[in-house]
């Protein structure tokens, strides 16, 4: 294209759009960097920039005497997320396999209902599960949390698996059947390897969503079954405990490492950026 002379209008466009994009990127990434740096502060108070650097808050965080409650909450969160994700992978993948076979309005309606826990307010659902389990004679336990989390995170696996199934060529199954393979054998050797990256990406998102779930955990956890985000919320509400920054710092690093691993395994960023 021939080089055009920039008009004042085009300059204002570049200025406004460039400025807003820069602001948006700063707002996205700035807080992550700031909290990471703050976690190494030597100060007793939350301030930025930190007056000096130390590992004091991490030491206190890893100390079982000072931070035993946090460790228990972390263990609970990890257990609930692992079990709920495992169940979600099985039932949501099965549902996606059934959904891949139907088309039209019925398919869209079913898909929307399977995705609905993502849109309906989690807090309304959290209170609803509390009332539901209370009526059934509920004693707060991690099993109730697993069920509540399962409902909320299953859509992630459902969506990514359905997306990878839409790229699947059923002719592969026909040829394997004509060669004498059973349906189960064909599923294990052809379909499953094909959709595995989709399931893995969904499992990753589901696990992260469970670890971060507030609405369900808020109503279903108790002092004994405390969950990490609820514990952190409590620490922030009462005193501005700088250990929250250390927990944040540790979790940010874990998420970064997991993201890089997931990107290698499933092409997470490629999946997201390919559209």
């Amino acid at each position: 294209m021939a080089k055009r002379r920039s008009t004042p209008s085009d300059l204002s466009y570049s200025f406004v759009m460039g400025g807003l994009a820069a602001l948006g990127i700063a707002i996205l990434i700035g807080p992550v960097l700031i909290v990471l740096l703050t976690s190494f502060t030597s100060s007793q108070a939350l301030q930025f920039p930190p007056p000096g650097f130390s590992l004091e808050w991490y030491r206190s965080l890893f100390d079982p005497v000072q931070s035993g409650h946090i460790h228990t909450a972390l263990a609970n969160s990890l257990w609930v997320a692992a079990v709920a994700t495992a169940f979600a992978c099985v039932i949501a993948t099965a549902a996606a396999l059934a959904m891949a076979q139907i088309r039209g309005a019925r398919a869209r309606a079913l898909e929307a209902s399977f995705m609905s826990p993502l849109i309906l307010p989690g807090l309304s659902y959290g209170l609803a599960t509390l009332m539901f389990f209370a009526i059934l004679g509920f004693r707060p336990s991690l099993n109730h949390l697993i069920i509540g989390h399962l409902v909320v995170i299953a859509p992630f696996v459902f969506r990514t698996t359905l997306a990878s199934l839409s790229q699947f060529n059923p002719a592969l199954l026909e040829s394997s059947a004509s060669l004498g393979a059973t349906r189960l054998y064909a599923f294990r050797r052809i379909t499953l390897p094909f959709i595995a990256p989709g399931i893995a990406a969904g499992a990753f998102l589901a696990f992260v969503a469970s670890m971060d779930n507030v609405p369900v955990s808020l109503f279903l956890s108790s002092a004994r079954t405390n969950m990490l985000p609820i514990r952190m919320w409590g620490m922030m509400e009462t005193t501005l405990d700088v250990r929250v920054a250390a927990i944040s710092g540790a979790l940010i690093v874990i998420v970064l490492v997991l993201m890089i691993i997931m990107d290698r395994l499933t092409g997470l960023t490629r999946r997201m950026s390919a559209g």
Partner: protein
Amino acid sequence: MAGAALSEPGRVDWRLAAPLGLTYLAFFAAPLIILLAMSFAADDFFTAFSFHAWIDFWGDSFYRGVVYDTVRLGLVAVIATSLMAYPIALLFVASGPRMRKLLIFIILLPLLISVVIRTFAWIAILAREGVVNQTLIALGLTSTPLNLLQTELGLVIALSQIEMPLMLLPLITVMQQIDPSLSDASRALGGSKWRTFFKVTLPLSIPGWIAGATLVFASATTAFISQSIIGGARLVYLPSLIWQQAMVVYNWPFAAVASVTLLVAVLAGVTLFSLLGRFARTD
């Protein structure tokens, strides 16, 4: 037909969908029905049927104000995220593969970090001795630190970050599918960059924006952690009201009314956005 996965092509195996379907009926639909029923209960034990909680809620101008503030917060969050997400999406579409990978990383990272942490980060930034105030004082723009926490402005700034990935991901997906030759044609025919954006890119990106706006609205109106930590006791939205009524006051019917109201408000918002989308397409 794509994806006949386990059974023969053309035949639907409903047994595969049953485990998820039954789980949702038992642990998703049933609790929501009980929530609705509880809103018509006379007390926590549901000894009698009553409209008491609904009348208490909607008869009080304070609670009507809370509903209004919650919906408005969701709409303002949609506007704020749209203003920044469009330029970022345009930058993404115009970038090469390396820059795209970096941008996706920047978009996904906050999404995957706990919402509690993201809220915590904003406290460090918006507090009286926080980053923003220190910068403003150093630049001589203000002598006394501004109160940004416990204000709606502070909350909207924090929510802009927390919700922006939800706007960006669907928007980017749709904008990548727009044929770039359309913008080139508009430019070649003498359309300014602004005109090309408003007449070509924006209308074609509406489906992505609808998906993003729906997610941002649903998420911002129910962002309990951010609302309670940044909003503090001064700003009350429906989620904090639900929490307080259910777990502090133990008025379950009232909490159920507030929950059903939040649910209806979110569904109304979602419906409104999809109607807007249909209107924009037939335009």
